[in-house]
């Protein structure tokens, strides 16, 4: 177990990824919007200073005069994913181990024979230079402390993007100042429970009787307390745990009222889920489909319908499309405005594990067809070859009107540079 854990995370990661390739975004407020250009999900400090909050709906705030300088961007997950990959690679070559915790946060094993303040400062520089994303780094004897340190590095600009909580005395001073809700894993509900016992600051929580904490917050809360005291309970997770389930759910670009469109959407989601399944060499034994209307639409009854069933183990797009479309057809009602659908696969197992006594499909032929389709799509771009059921125009698809180029993954969209 490492003596020191670090957490590095990208500052306004999505916005920073956009800025990396577009110098016109450098000095203006930038906001990245959720799928369908719905609401703000990433903001640069300039955008925060203008009062834009996480979750602000774009169509409601876009007209405000003071927000005129803001550059609104659709989310370009292809780009963000590739930039996250670059950050990971830079880190993995410099520290013993890296755990990618989310697209923009990575835990680090910081057992390096170096002065950590200097080392982490260099790490930030190299990530910025090579992966083009500004970051903050926090570190300490446990993951929970590293996460807290990272939050401080982000919130207190005088720390210069770095925060070291290795020293118990320094930690104790911060613990006095900070509410317990700042701790990773302590949510609003837990915070309320603790407040009833008079526990407000992190220091109060750390000093509380561990048995009482375990009774109140279960073993999970007990672990958080241990970690804050400096005893590591959460190791770095190197392997992504085998998935229990996998889903493809998405809101439509506009309400869907035609069965033909819903059928295409469900087929497309089933196909995408099947692709994910095959990428991990898994098969699904259980399938669920849901569709629902807008819960906030005035004067419309909210309808959320789903159907789930066991299926013969498969990862074949054609099987999953057929089953999912059949389920969706059973749920479909005319005259309603459906805003979202989803396909959820469960009971996943390694592909081809069981010989099937009553198999109705020929698994080897199926595997071969799918492998060819996946290979073509890898080589020529996603969606080059696809089942006809998912449609061509996809009018129900995601609305992304301010989408930047996929600068790093499509040869036709790479950054343009003017010869000087």
């Amino acid at each position: 177990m490492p003596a020191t854990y670090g957490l590095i995370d990208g500052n306004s990661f999505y916005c920073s990824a956009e800025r990396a390739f577009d110098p016109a975004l450098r000095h203006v407020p930038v906001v990245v919007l959720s799928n369908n250009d719905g609401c703000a999900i990433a903001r640069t400090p300039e955008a925060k200073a203008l009062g834009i909050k996480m979750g602000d709906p774009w169509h409601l705030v876009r007209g405000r005069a003071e927000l005129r300088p803001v550059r609104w961007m659709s989310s370009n997950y292809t780009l963000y994913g590739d930039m996250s990959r670059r950050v990971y690679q830079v880190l993995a070559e410099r520290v013993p181990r890296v755990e990618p915790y989310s697209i923009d946060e990575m835990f680090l094993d910081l057992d390096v024979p170096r002065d950590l303040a200097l080392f982490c400062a260099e790490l930030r520089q190299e990530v910025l230079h090579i992966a083009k994303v500004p970051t903050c780094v926090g570190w300490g004897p446990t993951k929970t402390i590293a996460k807290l340190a990272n939050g401080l590095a982000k919130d207190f600009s005088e720390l210069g993007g770095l925060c070291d909580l290795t020293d118990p005395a320094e930690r104790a001073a911060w613990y006095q100042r900070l509410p317990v809700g700042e701790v990773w894993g302590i949510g609003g509900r837990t915070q309320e429970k603790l407040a009833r016992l008079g526990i407000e600051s992190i220091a109060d929580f750390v000093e509380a009787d561990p048995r009482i904490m375990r009774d109140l917050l279960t073993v999970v809360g007990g672990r958080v307390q241990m970690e804050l005291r400096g005893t590591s309970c959460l190791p770095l997770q190197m392997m992504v745990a085998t998935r229990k389930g996998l889903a493809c759910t998405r809101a439509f670009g506009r309400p869907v009222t035609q069965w033909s469109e819903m059928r295409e959407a469900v087929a497309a989601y089933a196909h995408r889920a099947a692709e994910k399944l095959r990428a991990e060499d898994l098969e699904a034994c259980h399938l669920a489909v849901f569709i629902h209307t807008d819960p906030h639409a005035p004067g419309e009854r909210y309808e959320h319908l789903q159907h789930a069933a066991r299926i013969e183990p498969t990862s074949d797009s054609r099987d999953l499309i057929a089953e999912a479309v059949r389920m969706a057809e059973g749920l479909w009602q005319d005259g309603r405005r459906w805003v979202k659908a989803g396909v959820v696969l469960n009971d996943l197992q390694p592909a081809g594990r069981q010989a099937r006594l009553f198999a109705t499909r020929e698994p080897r032929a199926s595997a071969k067809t799918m492998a060819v389709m996946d290979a073509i799509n890898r080589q020529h771009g996603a969606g080059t070859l696809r089942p006809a059921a998912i449609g061509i125009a996809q009018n129900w698809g995601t609305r992304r009107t301010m989408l930047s180029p996929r600068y790093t993954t499509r040869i036709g969209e790479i950054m343009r540079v003017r010869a000087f």
Partner: protein
Amino acid sequence: MAQDGYTGAETTGFVSPASDHLEGPIDLSEVLDLRRPNRYPVRVLGEALIDRGILPGDVLIADAAADPRPGAVAIVMLHGEVLVAQLAHKRGQWWLRPGRRDQPAVPVSEDMTLWAVVAALVRERV
């Protein structure tokens, strides 16, 4: 594996003597090191660097980890624009040397970002 499944080994009549020696097609990602986090392909606009052998439409492989050196071609961001320019080092500082003789060199300043150094060039059509 080739898309139709034949790699040079799956013969039906005579066993292919090549089957133990197959290597697959040349992978240009490998040659150009495109899997490295520091490598970014970019596309050239404009004719200013023709004398340097860089044509409009060329794909340059920019390397964000490479150190600048005099004579190198670099990608820089300046005043909201992305430029590809030759670097020079004179009188203790870096300059962008224009490809066209009738233009003055520009000193590399604080408000300029040296984004990457060009490491390779790909011309899709000759």
